[in-house]
């Protein structure tokens, strides 16, 4: 660690104007232990919507944003949470590299904002030493002022500031009104205010630690001494640790109860599935009606032409058949966001730890796997928090088995077409929801089984200790849940707009070719698309699929839900003469139950998602794992679908 030069070098001569005159805005890094509120603060400062949730290890990448101040712009970066600067996992490595200026193509920050949870001041102050020891100008932000207050803790900010030699602010990161001191610090970076100071004392302590004893201290002693100093700091700042939150105690008594715990877990799962099926119906009907009405409108407005055919039979049928599922996906995300933001996920990880242990993984792997229910891509990235490299690879290898939201349209379409809507366990849990649960469970079993195989063979290793911090339960903030839904809706619309629209148009063109001698479009099974389909057909015939499904399977390689759009287009063109065709009815006609179940099972297992393959390549640094993963999952899908079709 360097000896800190209390730097005032980035202060700009007032005559020159603000930082922009110097060419670049001051760079400020948000650093601190996991779950201390860095991303919440970042969002308030920059107006961006970085993901926030109530469990440690949410942020796994560097993310930067601009704060516009009257004095000029400041660039702020949000970083993964760390307890120190000796990284043991990939996300911690990111933070270390950024702070030391060792990240490629990025300069060292000009200042740090150290974000600590005020309710855990004693242990969080331990990270102050290595971070402030960098010698950069610093502001210490203590978050959770509201909770400290509610739980009867106390703290003298001015004394802590005196001890550390830098500004200290006690804030509620969720409440913009309390963030004034942070803005003041950022402004001072331009004006050279006295708020901008590096910490002198801790630097010296760190210096002694490294060299004073003549040899490096054993790690345990080093940390014990660091903790002692942190506690001494806390004491002189008059820190009184808050009592444990009563509501957290009461909720944990239920959620981690021997009997109630697993029951609550099952209840939550059942509720989510039922909501997706039963409660989304009015919304979906509304969306469907809107699509149909707008399609009819376009039909009456436009004259009969190839363009109208492309628009109505291609785009409206294709894109529309996917858009219908937006309400279901949003409901799923609503539940995920509320669960993550409340603090329940960390408990779920604890409950699942036994199971994870049995297959050779740690409870930490459970959080990425849970988030894979939304989408495998961020899940694979969030596995960076898993410390053991072999565990991490095993986790990301099995993550795509978890049922992501892109599978939902496919499941929902087929289930609605083939499973009657009958109640099963009372009015709150119907047969369709039960089948959906079955499909999710199948994916989970595949994930766990595969992880067990991997950890027993290719990725054998010794178990690492499981340390899971359980944050207090927090009321999910409307802001972050709303942001999550909005972002998701945008992602969905963008995907529909780009991938599905493109595929739909290409498919439509392929169905119009080759033009017959008398200038007519060919019957669809003789069209270019039909011919391609018939080439594929022999391969998938054993699974009970016809050429249309074959085309759908090929296009769904881009993204899973594309198959729904594809089938919408193909059937839309086939039935262009009938006024309103029903995708469900068409499927009921062309697939028998065995083939429908085979198709579902194929989607449970197969890795039809190019984004996942790409992120796997990036996160494993090569093609080996993604290729292995793709092949393995495809084989499993084929064999599973074949078996289902043969049996039923």
């Amino acid at each position, binding site marked *: 660690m360097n000896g800190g030069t209390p730097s005032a070098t980035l202060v700009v001569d007032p005559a020159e104007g603000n930082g922009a005159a110097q060419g670049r805005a001051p760079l400020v890094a948000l650093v601190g232990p996991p779950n201390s509120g860095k991303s919440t603060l970042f969002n308030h400062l920059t107006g961006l919507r970085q993901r926030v949730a109530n469990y440690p290890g949410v942020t796994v990448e560097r993310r930067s944003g601009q704060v516009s101040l009257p004095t000029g712009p400041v660039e702020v970066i949000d970083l993964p949470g760390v*307890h120190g600067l000796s990284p043991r996992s990939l996300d911690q490595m990111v933070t270390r590299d950024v702070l030391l200026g060792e990240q490629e193509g990025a300069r060292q920050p000009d200042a740090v904002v150290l974000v600590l949870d005020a309710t855990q001041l004693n242990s969080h102050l331990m990270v102050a030493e290595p971070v402030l020891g960098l010698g950069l100008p610093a502001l210490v932000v203590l978050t959770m002022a509201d909770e400290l207050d509610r739980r009867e803790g106390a703290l003298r900010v001015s004394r802590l500031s005196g001890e550390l030699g830098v500004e200290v602010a006690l804030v509620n990161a969720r409440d913009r009104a309390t963030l004034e001191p942070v803005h003041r610090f950022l402004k001072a970076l331009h004006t050279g205010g006295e708020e901008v100071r590096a910490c002198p004392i801790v630097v010296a302590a760190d210096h002694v630690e490294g060299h004073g004893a003549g040899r490096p201290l054993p790690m345990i002693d080093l940390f014990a001494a660091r903790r002692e100093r942190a506690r001494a700091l806390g004491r002189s700042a008059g820190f009184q640790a808050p009592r444990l939150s009563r509501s957290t105690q009461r909720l944990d008594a239920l959620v981690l109860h021997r009997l109630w715990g697993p029951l609550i877990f099952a209840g939550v799962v059942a509720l989510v599935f039922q909501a997706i099926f039963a409660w989304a119906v009015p919304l979906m009907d509304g969306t469907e009606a809107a699509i149909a009405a707008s399609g009819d409108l376009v039909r009456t407005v436009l004259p009969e032409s190839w363009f109208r055919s492309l628009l109505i039979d291609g785009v409206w049928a294709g894109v529309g058949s996917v858009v219908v599922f937006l309400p279901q996906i949003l409901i799923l995300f609503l539940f995920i966001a509320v669960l993550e933001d409340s603090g329940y996920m960390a408990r779920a990880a*604890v409950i699942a*730890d036994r199971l994870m242990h049995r297959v050779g993984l740690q409870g930490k792997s459970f959080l990425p796997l849970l988030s894979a229910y939304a989408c495998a891509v961020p899940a694979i990235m969030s596995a960076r928090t898993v410390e053991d490299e072999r565990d991490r690879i095993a986790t990301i290898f099995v993550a795509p088995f978890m049922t992501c939201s892109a599978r939902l349209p496919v499941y929902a379409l087929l289930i609605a077409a083939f499973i009657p809507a009958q109640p099963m366990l009372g009015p709150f849990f119907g047969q369709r929801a039960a089948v959906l649960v079955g499909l999710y469970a199948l994916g989970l079993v595949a994930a766990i089984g595969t992880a067990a195989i991997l950890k027993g063979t290719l990725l054998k290793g010794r178990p690492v200790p*499981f*340390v899971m911090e359980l944050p207090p339960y927090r009321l999910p903030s409307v802001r972050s849940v709303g942001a999550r839904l909005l972002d998701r809706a945008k992602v969905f619309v963008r995907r529909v707009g780009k991938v599905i629209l493109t595929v739909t148009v290409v498919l439509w063109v392929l169905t119009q070719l080759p033009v017959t001698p008398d200038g007519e479009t060919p019957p669809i099974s003789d069209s270019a698309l039909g011919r391609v389909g018939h080439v594929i057909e022999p391969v998938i015939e054993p699974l009970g699929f016809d050429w249309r499904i074959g085309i759908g399977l090929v296009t769904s390689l881009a993204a899973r839900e594309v198959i729904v759009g594809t089938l919408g287009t193909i059937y839309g063109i086939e039935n262009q003469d009938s006024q309103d065709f029903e995708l469900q009815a068409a499927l009921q006609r062309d697939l028998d139950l065995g083939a429908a179940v085979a198709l579902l099972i194929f989607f449970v297992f197969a890795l039809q998602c190019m984004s996942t393959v790409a992120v796997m390549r990036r996160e494993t640094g090569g093609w080996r794992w993604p290729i292995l993963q793709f092949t393995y999952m495809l084989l499993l899908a084929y064999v599973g679908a074949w078996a289902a079709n043969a049996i039923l």
Partner: protein
Amino acid sequence: MRRTDNSAPTPPDRTLADVPLEEEVVLVRMDVAGDDVESLLERGIVPGCKLCPIRHAPAGGPTVYRVDGALVALRKETAACLCVRSALEAAGVLASN
């Protein structure tokens, strides 16, 4: 592997895994192998810190401990590597030193 030597005459130590719920103990020694110990250390679980088991997860899962006003869950296997002494007893030993 013995990491921290405790040269005071040691009464028979217990491991954290043996501590009944709601009994506060002081950590005296950590027998965790290699670098793994760091994930405990950096969260403030170091010799001298107080731990109190407050809840077992269902089906033999991890136990939740109160550490420095926060909640941390540890597996049985990890807890069995941590030697502890009851908080009262530890206070006595310290006083007699």
